[in-house]
């Protein structure tokens, strides 16, 4: 059915070379505390990202994927949040940065695009002005140069009639167009790391694929590293080199995207794959994962997925499984991996 697919040339995860990874997260714990509720949103996450690599964090609501992403830029509400662990981007310790350093970091080293493009822009200024302003503030150039750069960026993100569009206000742009404008804004200061929080979830299918292709192309051209957060496996397959599956604040499976999708080993990943609706299954029941994710205000002691897992046994509910190596960078955190080997 797909008329235009090509087999992807194998892109291996970069060999552990002397080059330091761009992003290094060690033992990240994020705790939200309000007088009413305490929530342990992220529960010990270790993640590395090499330069020029694209990683997708896959998970459902409540898995902690967005929180993990935002902690990379410290975009979480300061007063309510407690972050422990280590987060290093481009050699800098993000958690130890002062306000000033953080301000320089955001935009220049790391930039983020969000799900609602309209919300990233101030409604009372034109999009061109806002991009120019970002450039001027970070690089100290004149406004005219800032606008020139904005025009260049608009061309790069394939906005037609770019010059005219620079003068548009955010509400005058359609969904796909404003998402492109937001990407332009994020790239305006040539960041090394691009963080994308479900940027295509709210878009129509035909627009989504355009944006995904655009992001792929930009990533190749600029050599950026990208961390993409989504709940859609198809999107993960289209855009990333590696994938990390999150459940209840922890990573349950990581590896090259081809491997994980072709041979998932963690029961949760397997469950996700098998519960997907597709035409072949018409007339039959879907093998849905029973139950619901746990309450994050009281994370269970053992494996969080145990209550819903078809292979769970006594060890699973008592002890937290560590990551086991499955070969070739593929890892899964499960006591019962023997059951899931195909």
């Amino acid at each position: 059915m797909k008329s235009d697919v090509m087999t992807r040339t194998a892109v291996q995860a970069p060999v552990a070379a002397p080059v330091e990874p761009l992003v290094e997260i060690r033992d990240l714990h994020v705790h939200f505390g309000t007088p009413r509720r305490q929530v342990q949103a992220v529960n010990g996450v270790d993640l590395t990202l090499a330069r020029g690599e694209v990683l997708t964090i896959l998970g459902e609501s409540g898995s902690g994927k967005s929180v993990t992403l935002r902690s990379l830029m410290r975009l979480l509400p300061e007063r309510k949040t407690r972050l422990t662990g280590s987060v290093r981007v481009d050699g800098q310790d993000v958690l130890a940065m002062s306000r000033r350093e953080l301000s320089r970091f955001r935009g220049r080293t790391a930039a983020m695009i969000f799900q609602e493009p309209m919300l990233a822009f101030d409604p009372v200024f034109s999009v061109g002005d806002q991009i120019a302003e970002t450039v001027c503030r970070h690089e100290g150039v004149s406004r005219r140069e800032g606008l020139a750069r904005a025009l260049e960026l608009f061309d790069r993100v394939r906005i037609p009639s770019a010059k005219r569009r620079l003068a548009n206000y955010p509400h005058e742009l359609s969904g796909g167009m404003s998402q492109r404008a937001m990407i332009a804004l994020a790239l305006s200061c040539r960041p090394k790391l691009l963080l994308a929080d479900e940027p295509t979830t709210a878009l129509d299918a035909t627009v989504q694929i355009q944006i995904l292709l655009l992001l792929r192309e930009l990533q190749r051209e600029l050599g950026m590293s990208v961390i993409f957060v989504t709940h859609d496996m198809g999107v993960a397959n289209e855009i990333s080199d590696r994938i990390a599956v999150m459940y209840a604040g922890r990573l349950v499976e990581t590896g090259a995207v081809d491997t994980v999708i072709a041979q998932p080993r963690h029961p949760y990943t397997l469950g996700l794959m098998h519960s997907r609706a597709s035409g072949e299954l018409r007339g039959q029941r879907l093998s849905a994962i029973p139950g619901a994710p746990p309450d994050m205000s009281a994370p269970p002691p053992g494996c969080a997925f145990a209550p819903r897992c078809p292979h769970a046994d006594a060890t699973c509910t008592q002890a937290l499984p560590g990551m086991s190596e499955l070969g070739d960078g593929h890892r899964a955190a499960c006591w019962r991996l023997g059951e899931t080997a195909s």
Partner: protein
Amino acid sequence: MSHQARKEDSRNAAPLVTSDPRDRGGRAQPLLRVKGLRKHFVIKRDLLGRPLSRVHAVDGIDFEVRKGETLGIVGESGCGKSTTARLLMHLLQPDGGEVIFDGDPVGTRGGLSLREMRRQMQMVFQNSYASLNPRMTIEESIAFGPQVHGVGRREARQRARRLLDQVGLLPERFAQRYPHELSGGQRQRVNIARALALEPRLLILDEAVSALDKSVEAQVLNLLGDLKQEYGLTYLFISHDLNVVRYVSDRVMVMYLGKVAEVGDSEALYRAPAHPYTRALMSAMPSLEPGRRTQTAPLAGDPPNPIDLPPGCRFCPRCPLAVDLCRGTEPELAALPGGGHLSACHRADEVQSAVSNPQPSVEESV
């Protein structure tokens, strides 16, 4: 009346609907027939209040829903699928066309009254939270519908509890809760229970699972399948997710800018679409095959707004196969050979045969 375990039998066979006492006309008569349905929204008026420009949200659509089937409606923003749902439920006043329910025209004198129609046709909305009154308990929300139609309070509450059980929420635990205490999936189950409280024959599901997580979506889809069999329901399933629609529907209708682009049997439509827009939609789905990725976007630009439409085919500006004929004359929704499969395209047969050919040909790339 708690729900019994179900066997894994195939659910392709349409359930017996002739046992419903409200049935008229038997299997052969479509449950719902829509002719020329139209709705325009005026967005600009001149000084005297005369309309200057309109959004042609739904611009004359014809389709039918057979008893016991699931008809899927797909399309992108601006296609009019949600407006269609609201027009069918008479939450919006149509500007033209007619709706015929089991042989009776709805809303006209001598036909089915709106009140009676609402006992036979119900809807589940997309936003599970906004569909429930935050100040009413779950039980009250479900019991409200039957009470409006004269069912006594106690009996309505009993019905509510039975339905909660049917949708998988223990009445003892959930009946007295408020919507904000439930998760999205649980709320959507409540919405389904609420829609079923009136014992309808046709259920319109307007993006009912779109806002749910994938694992919850699977559970709710299973639930919908079970309920359909149990109650002999007919579904109108509106969604933008092509995979889910393919799984759930017997027939599928594709809408574009307020008109029907193509309608036909699920498998036939997905395997060999006969409209360039349908083909583009299919190609736009992200690939789930490891190692194979999409290389080109099938369509450029955003779906346009149905305002001030050009003459001729609406899809012309974006269509890779457009010719002069397309720009001049609007294509009719015509049947393709084989019956049951209709497409509104001048070059429908070319489109259909091109795709059944497995080799990708150069002129197809957009």
